[in-house]
């Protein structure tokens, strides 16, 4: 075996090990969800899924609440994604293209907001949202989530806009495009991988968010899956198989979205992070 073959094989082994480490928690959730009561606390743990127990996945959907939670999560995550992109694209473009007084300060100020944990902001936001009627609403959660995703997405897109030569826009304007048309028809398609990556980041944040959803939503019909799932864990009993089954189902849409977009994400991150 040559040195390069050895390195190649070693790299493959490392990749398999890392992939195994990444996949194992998901596999273990699936195995636990399909473990019978009798085997749950057996001396030797069950290592492979029991196909006879797959009915648990039908059971969790029979109650109806899980479907509602997932639908709510999707609405909140999609709303967060759309609003974040709608605000971050012009903001990132302005940071990349236009000189204005205090630009550096505003940019740093945006990043500083990332240093505040949600737990610090939850009480003031609750006080603001209450008189505005934004509690117990998708709009309130989407706004709160967007406040957290907007700074980082703005910076990602700002870096992506920086990589697009301004001459391309100038050529488009010479050909008759307005400034906004040049942004939408010429620049955005070039940075589409970064936009896709940003969309995934915003969607994941909205999908996984817990603290705001827990505090701002008291109406059971509006609760997202993150809060619903936590509700399974009780003071004196926890239906372990149900928790794992809902956990598997809860993870699937996010994993599917990531798999769908991963090519864009990798190239998008690279495009946004390398200038010149």
């Amino acid at each position, binding site marked *: 075996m040559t040195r390069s073959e050895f390195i190649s094989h070693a790299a493959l082994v490392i990749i398999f090990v890392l992939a195994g480490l990444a996949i194992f928690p998901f596999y273990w959730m699936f195995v636990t969800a399909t473990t019978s009561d009798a085997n749950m606390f057996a001396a030797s743990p069950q290592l492979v899924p029991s196909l006879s127990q797959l009915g648990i996945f039908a059971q969790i959907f029979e109650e109806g609440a899980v479907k509602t939670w997932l639908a709510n999560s999707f609405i909140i995550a999609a709303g967060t994604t759309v609003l974040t992109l709608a605000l971050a694209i012009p903001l990132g473009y302005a940071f990349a293209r236009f000189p204005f007084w205090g630009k550096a300060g505003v940019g740093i100020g945006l990043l500083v907001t990332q240093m505040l944990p949600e737990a610090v902001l939850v009480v003031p936001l609750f006080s603001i949202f209450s008189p505005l009627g934004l509690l117990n609403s998708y709009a309130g959660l989407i706004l709160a989530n967007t406040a957290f995703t907007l700074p980082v997405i703005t910076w990602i897109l700002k870096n992506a806009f920086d990589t697009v030569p301004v001459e391309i826009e100038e050529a488009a304007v010479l050909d008759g495009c307005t400034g906004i048309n040049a942004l939408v028809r010429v620049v955005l398609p070039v940075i589409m991988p970064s936009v896709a990556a940003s969309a995934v980041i915003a969607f994941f944040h909205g999908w996984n968010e817990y603290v705001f959803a827990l505090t701002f939503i008291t109406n059971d019909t509006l609760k997202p899956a993150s809060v619903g799932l936590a509700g399974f864990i*009780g003071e*004196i009993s926890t239906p372990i198989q149900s928790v794992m089954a809902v956990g598997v189902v809860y993870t699937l849409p996010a994993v599917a979205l990531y798999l769908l977009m991963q090519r864009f994400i990798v190239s998008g991150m690279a495009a946004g992070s390398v200038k010149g």
Partner: protein
Amino acid sequence: MIDRRNLMAGVAALALLGSVAAAAAEPAEISFAASMLGEPLRGPLLTALVEEFNQSQDAVHVTPVTTPFSSFGTTMFTQMGGGGGPDVIAFDQPNIYAAAEAGLLVSLDEVVDGVTLLPGNNSLIVDGVQYGVALDISNYALIYNPTLVTKVPTTFDELVAEAKAQTKDGVYGFAFRHTQAEEAGVWYDLSNYVYGNGGHWAVDGNPTINSAETIAGVTAYKTLYDANVIPKGADAATYRRMFAEGKIAMMIDNGGIPTVLKGTNPDAAIAAAPAPLPTKAIGQVMAALAINGNSKSPDAAKAFMKWFLTPETQAKVQGFLGGSTAATPIARTKEELEKAPYIEVFDSLGDVALPFMPQGLEAETPQVRNIVVEAVMRVLAGQTDVAAAMNEAQSQVEALR
């Protein structure tokens, strides 16, 4: 002849009357939050009871609010701190003190006037004002599997020996909470050994964390931990389920647990006995109903609470609480005791059971709990000995005052 001005005034008066009539017809909307509402067994029964109240009258409509147990206290305080939150809240006992001292609760003196409450409710009086009434009161005792444990331990040494003997073939002899992640649960379990050894966390507002009796209690807790008789790493929900499946022989737990175990596995073998500790003193846990000071309809909330304290409702509540009791004295039925004879053991401990709060430092319970449990975690990890850890905790708690 009706002129235009009179016509308009008449229309306005009619509109006002109509809106008042409509308002009178609309029931006052209030919300009720309790972590019990989310439990798979007792939750639906409590929800059904709330619905029964809604059906019984037209003036008030109560909407149950489920909040995950793990975040219940912090979520309620966050919402209340922001000027909102549910109207009626079932708090853990120490939270009543914290909320009352922050001026976040409504006095229930009017609600409990003329109602005979169990003595445990006295612990919900803060500065002479009744701020809470019990949803359930649960005393702790030794819960054991009678098919595994044939000779019930009556001393701590017998308990350790029996736990060691039972730990084999995938069965653990004992179980209790022992991780920082379950800080409140560790505090409850630890307190049982402290109380059972004659100790207290505080007396008349003075911390007694490093007293000989308290140290003896913590040492007993550590002795069981070191004996390798518990499923280390298992949380309470897991090991209770293990008990229901016959994988745990004994545990010191509260009176509400057997009902949950039976709900998990109707065939679970369950018996109870007083905890085998040097004194009879043992812990008592309580969830207490309180009215949020931010409530827009405090009178409606009081009406719900008054209904909740009626003998008929209390009998129904106690009916699904198992070995726990409701807020008022409700006699056990013959059928109830025949079906679950262990209930008598829990009921018999009412006179010796103590709340899990340092006496005189009730409002500081979360801080004291955090200091003590962190110290005990260091002891379990072998980083320090019990006496040194308790001395340090004593100093830290004294610094709080």
